[in-house]
């Protein structure tokens, strides 16, 4: 059973020319997904209003009635992951005891961070603390306590819980694929539930749904994101905002992403992710140095301390006694958002984590990204809070008006704003490219039936389709409708997550259990044992010494 499906580097990655024309795909999954996507896009554009309303209704109903379930799920997953980190399975290596990592630690980390958070963090790092500072159901707005709580809530939404969800999905897929020899695909997560049926129509359906959801998730983010980029560019350069510019932007981003996907994981995606993280680090460092450095340094420690002290309290808070509906729009939205993204991000993390031990995996996917996120949110959020509380103000208003622009408003408060704003634009674009190429990579792997190095032609197809879908929805309308549709998959997948915890634990227990060595039937006859200690014959000097 324990086959080691080593991601074979010699396959497509090193020689794209040879495998260019091979279209080694899973026919049902590939073609039905592609057809469904095109159909869906057409239907959404035609029945825009109607589709939008349906999914909006579904989303708000699930938040209203299943909020508690989301909160349960994310907390269970976090506790489960922490137990795995500390527990006896920590030494199990993904890919078997002799597997070694495919990527350097920095490259690995850059990739998973770029795929996992990326763009949202850039905008919400500034915007979210501002929102909570201006209004939240826990404290009086605008007070010192409000600032503290604002950072705490932001940390909750971007901290341990989302990364625990990603780690959970990633770990399940990686373990079952690399250690148990199942295909690297979403259907694999259902193996403990469905057994061999994952190879039949049940499995195909799951993979098709995952493909469609991932593509729409990435494409709608791309479509909505370029509007934000356009808003930023307009604010900086006054070039105006029009679908034309946005479609050109989609074209550019898709072009780079396609190049990166075709170059493969190591030569394309890893490099871009590293560049991306490099730029982001530069921007953060700059803001920290020219901004209120001391305030940020003080805040980092205090925010983390406050978050850890209040984690059990805030993460189980369900606004029961407040009887408000604030949480639906924030916490529950985030939880269903992260869960809806988790098949895609989890799959990508699984793909790049071959050869890591479970302990390394959890440290790398849960703790390190959480710390980096906290650093980022503190640098941007606390700088914004500083300006709002002790400086000229104006950030909160800018956030209310236009979230993407608020980042640039923040940067304007400091010297060299033209330079930093340009750097911010570059970071935004590279983040888009990295989430776009990792999204395509995941879809490629799924539609090729779980091949960790999918054929180049299919990589090309999905990368381009993604851009095309984003552009069509942008021009035809329906980006928000389809994005909402993607988020509604959060509820069913929350249940799947709980099932996965159980299945993974069982799988690990079975895997780690000692396996008896035994010999089968044999022909023998009885011999008398000789009554003479034959010690003399075996003693004496050995040549060894």
């Amino acid at each position, binding site marked *: 059973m324990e086959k080691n499906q080593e991601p074979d580097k010699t396959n497509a990655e090193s020689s794209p020319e040879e495998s260019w024309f091979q279209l080694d795909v899973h026919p049902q999954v590939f073609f039905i997904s592609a057809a469904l996507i095109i159909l869906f896009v057409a239907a959404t554009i035609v029945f825009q209003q109607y589709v939008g309303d349906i999914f909006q209704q579904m989303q708000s109903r699930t938040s209203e009635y299943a909020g508690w379930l989301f909160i349960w799920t994310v907390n269970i997953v976090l506790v489960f992951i922490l137990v795995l980190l500390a527990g006896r399975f920590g030494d199990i290596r993904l890919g078997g005891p002799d597997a070694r990592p495919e990527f350097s630690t920095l490259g690995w980390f850059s990739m998973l961070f770029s795929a996992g958070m990326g763009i949202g963090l850039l905008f919400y790092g500034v915007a979210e603390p501002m929102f909570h500072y201006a209004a939240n159901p826990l404290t009086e707005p605008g007070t010192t306590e409000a600032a503290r709580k604002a950072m705490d809530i932001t940390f909750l939404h971007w901290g341990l819980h989302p990364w625990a969800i990603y780690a959970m999905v990633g770990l399940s897929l990686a373990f079952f694929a690399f250690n148990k020899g199942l295909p690297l695909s979403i259907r694999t997560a259902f193996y403990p539930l469905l057994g061999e049926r994952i190879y039949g129509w049940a499995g195909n359906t799951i993979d098709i749904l995952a493909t469609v959801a991932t593509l729409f998730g990435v494409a709608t983010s791309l479509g909505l994101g370029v509007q934000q980029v356009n808003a930023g560019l307009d604010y900086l350069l006054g070039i105006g905002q029009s679908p034309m510019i946005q479609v050109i932007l989609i074209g550019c981003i898709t072009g780079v992403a396609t190049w990166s996907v075709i170059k493969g994981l190591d030569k394309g995606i890893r490099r871009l992710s590293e560049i991306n993280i490099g730029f982001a680090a530069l921007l953060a460092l700059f803001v920290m140095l020219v901004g209120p450095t001391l305030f940020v340094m003080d805040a980092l420690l205090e925010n983390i301390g406050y978050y850890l002290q209040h984690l059990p309290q805030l993460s189980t808070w369900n606004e029961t006694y407040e009887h408000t509906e604030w949480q639906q729009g924030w916490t529950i939205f985030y939880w269903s958002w992260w869960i809806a993204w988790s098949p895609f991000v989890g799959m990508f993390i699984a793909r790049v984590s071959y050869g890591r031990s479970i302990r390394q995996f959890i440290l790398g996917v849960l703790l390190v990204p959480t710390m980096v996120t906290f650093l980022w949110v503190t640098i941007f959020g606390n700088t914004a809070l500083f300006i709002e509380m002790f400086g000229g103000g104006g950030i909160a208003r800018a956030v209310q008006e236009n979230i993407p622009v608020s980042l640039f408003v923040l940067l304007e408060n400091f010297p060299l704003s033209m330079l930093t704003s340009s750097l911010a634009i570059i970071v935004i674009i590279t983040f888009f490219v990295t989430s776009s190429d990792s999204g395509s990579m995941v879809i490629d792997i799924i539609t090729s039936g779980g091949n960790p190095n999918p054929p180049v032609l299919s990589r090309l197809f999905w990368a381009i389709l993604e851009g095309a879908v984003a552009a069509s929805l942008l021009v035809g309308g329906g980006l928000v409708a389809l994005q909402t549709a993607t988020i509604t998959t959060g509820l069913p997948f929350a249940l799947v997550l709980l099932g996965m915890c159980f299945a993974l634990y069982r799988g690990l227990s079975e895997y780690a*259990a000692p396996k008896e060595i035994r010999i089968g039937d044999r022909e023998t006859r009885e011999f*008398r*044992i000789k009554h003479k200690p034959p010690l003399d014959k075996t003693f004496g000097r050995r040549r060894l010494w």
Partner: protein
Amino acid sequence: MLQDIYYQYKGASMMLFRKEKDEVAFCGTAFLVHADGYLLTAAHLITGQDELMVAPMEEAAGFVSVSAESVAPISVEIRQIDRQRDIALLKFVQEIEVTMPEHIMGIPEEVPIGNTVACLGFPFGHYHIYVHLIKQAVVSAKILSGNETHILLFDTMVHDGSRGAPLINLYDGRIIGVVGGRFEPQELMPRQLKRSETPIKTNISYAVSIDHASKLMEDEALSIM
């Protein structure tokens, strides 16, 4: 952990006998290393002309009798032998199905000094006491012998019957050596010094690194498990 090691290897570690006419004489321990029916033991236990047989421990729960008048052994043949390294590779003569997990060969190179190990053999077989016995020790040193063989020293006294037993890394449950016997410092003493007649007493024993066994298995065109 030791329970797990015992559970995993109790069927793998077997008594090694030499056939003498219609009787068999106990020589030491041998253990399974490959699903195709291959076993390893210490080369100095066997002469080369002997007809060899192995007998697994009979499966029994609870407290067991350790005496036996007769045994039902399986014939094995010598496939590869390296007297310089004191390792021999044996194989069942008949086809026998072996159930065995992958990854049982460890990497002695990566085992740190101080690492806990276990050895599982039949120490008192020469005295007609057939007790299958697990012992715990730590890797005390990793040294080169006179002929540059990789040797693991460990701090427990093995008895004569445990020679040829597996030395198992407690942390990953993989075999890292073939037990050779007690460590005799005089063997490594500079040649010009005078040796005493009686051995120096130590509770240190040695095992030959499993690397050397891997070479024999490669010669036999086996995939290392």
